[in-house]
């Protein structure tokens, strides 16, 4: 209750401890029970979620067990002598080995998923899209008909003239490149993103795709994934990149293949004239 004055003077809705407390409790509980993950919209998402939830439950379980052991140890009648060396096995080495095995198992599972996600590149048929992070916006570039990106050069960068990426006018491959401020992808087709940054490190983060990868200047990083569920999702910047970091966001629109094709066509027509 010492807090309510602060709340009031800061002009929030008047706050009564009891009511919010109950709402908070109920919310927190519900959140804990379903762990509050955004819905997942990528092929690798469900496996990742299962592994994540497994981990969270295990952690929660260990947390509870550990505290139960702690409290039990504190409450039970005092045994004169500390546990002897024989029970050392029971109390220490046995649980330690079990936990070691547990952690090992989790690691193996995790590394499997990681290998699938990252060890290999995308297959050649994948849709090529280039993502460029700039303070404080994301730009998405499609290669167009020729399936090749025009070369970029910082000296040509001119956001004013609609060339924020500095696509070199003298490069024919760049002529048909499509620039977009939102990432539009077809459902169920693998996507090969090449991440760049123009100025500082940015973080390409799509919660619904369970995907995060930093975009590092002077370096092109590839990530590949397959969006499954159509919908509009948030693209955030997850790496501190300056004062506009918090508003460096864009939308990801996953469309059914047909709609995507028409969107692309429209885009190309627009670019033509």
């Amino acid at each position, binding site marked *: 209750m010492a807090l309510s004055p602060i709340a009031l003077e*800061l*002009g*929030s809705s008047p706050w009564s401890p009891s009511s*919010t407390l109950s709402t*908070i409790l109920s919310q*927190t509980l519900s*959140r*804990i029970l379903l*762990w*509050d993950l*955004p819905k997942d919209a990528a092929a690798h998402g469900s496996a*990742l979620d299962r*592994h994540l939830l497994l*981990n969270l439950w295990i*952690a929660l379980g*260990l*947390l509870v067990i*550990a505290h139960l052991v702690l409290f039990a140890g504190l409450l039970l009648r*005092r045994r*004169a*002598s500390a*546990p002897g060396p024989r029970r*050392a096995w029971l*109390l*220490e080495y046995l649980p*330690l080995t079990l936990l*070691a095995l547990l*952690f090992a198992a*989790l690691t193996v599972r*995790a*590394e499997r998923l*990681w290998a699938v*996600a*990252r060890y290999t590149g995308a297959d050649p048929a994948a849709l090529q899209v280039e993502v460029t992070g700039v303070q404080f916006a994301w730009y998405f570039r499609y290669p167009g008909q020729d399936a090749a990106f025009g070369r970029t050069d910082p*000296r040509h960068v001119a956001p004013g003239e609609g060339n924020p990426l500095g696509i070199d006018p003298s490069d024919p491959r760049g002529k048909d490149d499509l620039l977009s401020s939102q990432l539009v992808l077809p459902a169920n087709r693998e996507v090969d993103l090449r991440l760049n940054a*123009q100025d*500082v*490190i940015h*973080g390409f*983060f799509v*919660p619904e795709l369970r*995907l995060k*990868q930093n975009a*590092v*200047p*002077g*370096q092109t990083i590839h990530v590949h994934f397959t969006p499954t569920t159509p919908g509009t999702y*948030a693209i*955030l910047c*997850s*790496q*501190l*990149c*300056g*004062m506009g*970091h*918090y*508003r460096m*966001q864009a*939308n990801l629109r996953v469309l059914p293949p047909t709609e995507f094709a028409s969107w692309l066509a429209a885009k190309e027509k627009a670019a033509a004239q």
Partner: protein
Amino acid sequence: MTPELNPEPSRATASDSVLRQPASWHRRYLFSTDHHVIGIQYLLLALVAVAIGTTLSLLMRLHLVWPDAVLPLHGPILPEDYLSLVTFHGTLMVFFVLTTAPQSGFGNLILPRQIGARHMAFPRLNAASFWISAVALATLLAATFAPSGGSISGWTAYPPLSAIASSGPGQALGMDLWLASIALFSVASTLSAINTIVTVLDCRCKGMSWERLPLTVWGWFTAALLSLIAFSVLLAALLLLFCDRHAGTSFFVPAGDLTNGVLHPAGNGSPLLWLHLFWFFGHPEVYIAILPGMGLTSMLLANFSRRRVYGYRVMILTTLLIGFLGILVWGHHMFVAGLNPFASTAFSISTMAIALPSTAKVLNWLALVWRSRPSYKTPLLFTLGFVSLFLTGGLTGPILAQPILDQYLHNTFFVIAHFHLIMAMAGVFGLFAATYYWFPILSGTRIRPGRLLSEPLGRLHFWGTLIGAYATFLPMHLTGLAGEPRHYAQLTAIPGQAGHLLAQTLPLQRHITYAAVFLALAQLPFFLNLLRSLRHGAIAPPNPWDATTLEWHPALQREPSAQASPSEETIVVYRAPCAYDSAPDQARFLPQWVSGTKAE
């Protein structure tokens, strides 16, 4: 607070001409070379830092919930202000609180005593390192007065953001001062690490063999070894960054980098190089922050449950293992930063491996208190809190250590929750335990006997802080899982889907903020307790906790009540610490310094 030293030189505490204190007060208190005074100076430094750091954290919390609240003197908090708040909060807390207080503060105050030495190996160097740290803190605070504000690139200062002055407000002079401050701090820490190492190697009293070293000393020693390695590397990295900023080099800034119209023409610079160098320092750093607390936990649990430390050798071994493995895991901060995926796997495995010694420690502690019915003095309460918070925060470590999961959790509030529980809160609980436990030594002077902190206030402080800590940082896991990234100056009024995603977390955010305010208020009993007990606290008996370690050796007490004056007693150690006779009457125990088999 500061010790009164014996007027007649022949009985001065220190046995070295360097340490013979002249009468002038500034030689005695300000530029003293006495480890006791320096320890207290460090603790005061940490208190200043923690007070500021806490205030900043509260401002952050308030701003996150009420973005358009107006500060009395400052006006509205702009996004860059928020980022400066985060940066200075993190920098103050990591460097000037959790590296300074446990390692340098209590290290100086207690370590020499616990090994039966009367002073550190290099007293003048010791004073020098303190004053360098003090200058470092001043420099850091000065950065906030830079024309365009303090730096905004976080405590990890990733380039190019930190390397290019035009990359944002506060990245010009503010960043330079930040660099200068941390460079000074690195030098100071390296020097005091050397001092600590040599003190432990060379100044142990007779009979203090390695197996008889208290685990606290092992903690300080290992942390010092880590500091020596880590801070040297950080210093090199800072030098390179400075050259990039002012000498036109390109160590971290790649060619063709275009920031705010400033083109970086040429060079092989790689931002990842900084990440490697920084985290090679950064991870050992976080263990530097916790190792002393781990040692203290073992010792206090044993002390208050009147038992031997369970598996003493194992504890020493795990301490060293954590120290060693701590050097090999830095890549787990870079899983999604552009690291080679195979390297990620390697670092992931080494990180999982380092979780094991920590787990062994936790199990050890659980076994130690198993059916021990300890006496619930405040130091013990905070130690138990340490155990609880450490394992709560620690359990999310292995989750983050799996690259595939980290690619979702990296740089979300899940990470914030992880390290606030295990570093911030567990570390601070260690500090509190130490303060309550060693306050008699802290407050004892030649003219005034040491005093105890008040138990009721202590209990109040403990419960408030424990509840506040969990109430503040547990919900952060949830907002993190919901996808809330770090370093977001604002969660409202953000367009697009992102706006919806972030808005969902607001109710929980509000709760976190209230809890944070509560947590900060819960510190008031502590400060009240400090001030009150300095003069009016109960007078402490020579060995208030019936401890076995040497810092309670009568010859090292500063009270007149001590039987022997420091000069007249050669300290000899006869056994490992924690030889608590587990007979029901708790009075009977054997301190390290008592010969024979039974004390009366």
